[in-house]
């Protein structure tokens, strides 16, 4: 079975740009999560979907971050407009309930 896939693996953006990160969860998993990972803050939950319904939209990230799940096999995370402080690794994970399975992440650098 294919694991969680994320594209692109690396992204460089200018401040103020709009970027879209993509995630394909493991087939059959009902839960999908977006996280931001930095050395200082660790893993921060951005969004959580269950069966394509948005269950949680991480408070502090609401204004410029928008995650969508258009179908059960594809999700996007849009950051608009980007700021240098958004430089981080963005991780997508899916779950059948219980353990979460992570993708390799997208490393974003905002100049």
């Amino acid at each position, binding site marked *: 079975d294919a694991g*969680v896939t994320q594209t692109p693996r690396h992204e460089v953006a200018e401040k103020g740009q709009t970027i879209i990160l993509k995630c394909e969860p493991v087939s059959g998993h*009902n*839960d999908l*999560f977006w996280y931001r990972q930095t050395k200082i803050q*660790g*893993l921060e*939950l951005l969004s*959580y979907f*269950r069966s394509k319904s948005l*269950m*949680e939209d991480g408070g502090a990230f609401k204004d410029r971050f928008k995650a969508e799940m258009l179908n059960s096999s594809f999700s996007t995370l849009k950051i608009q407009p980007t700021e240098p402080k958004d430089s981080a690794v963005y*991780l997508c*994970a899916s*779950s059948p*309930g*219980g*353990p*979460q*399975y*992570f*993708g*390799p*992440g997208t490393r974003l650098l905002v100049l």
Partner: protein
Amino acid sequence: QQQVRQSPQSLTVWEGGTTVLTCSYEDSTFNYFPWYQQFPGEGPALLISILSVSDKKEDGRFTTFFNKREKKLSLHIIDSQPGDSATYFCAASETGANTGKLTFGHGTILRVHP
């Protein structure tokens, strides 16, 4: 509010030694505790997990212990290898609740020297 605390932040051990990582949590409704291993440039990977009905689970060189009374858990790695050098995260959740959310610790960076 950090509900899951990990210690130490970083740890260096010699090859062949035993590594011990610890976690504590606050929410008494937590009953599922996975450990994740993350190598640079990769996402976290599930290493081992335990439910609160057990006090020990073993998988090869990796063993996790759970102490419900003290709200603590630990990960022991015996015969540590340089290939074990990674960041380790503990996490916690409440199975049976209508959420799949995990609460993660901040991670422990492990270096195993040959």
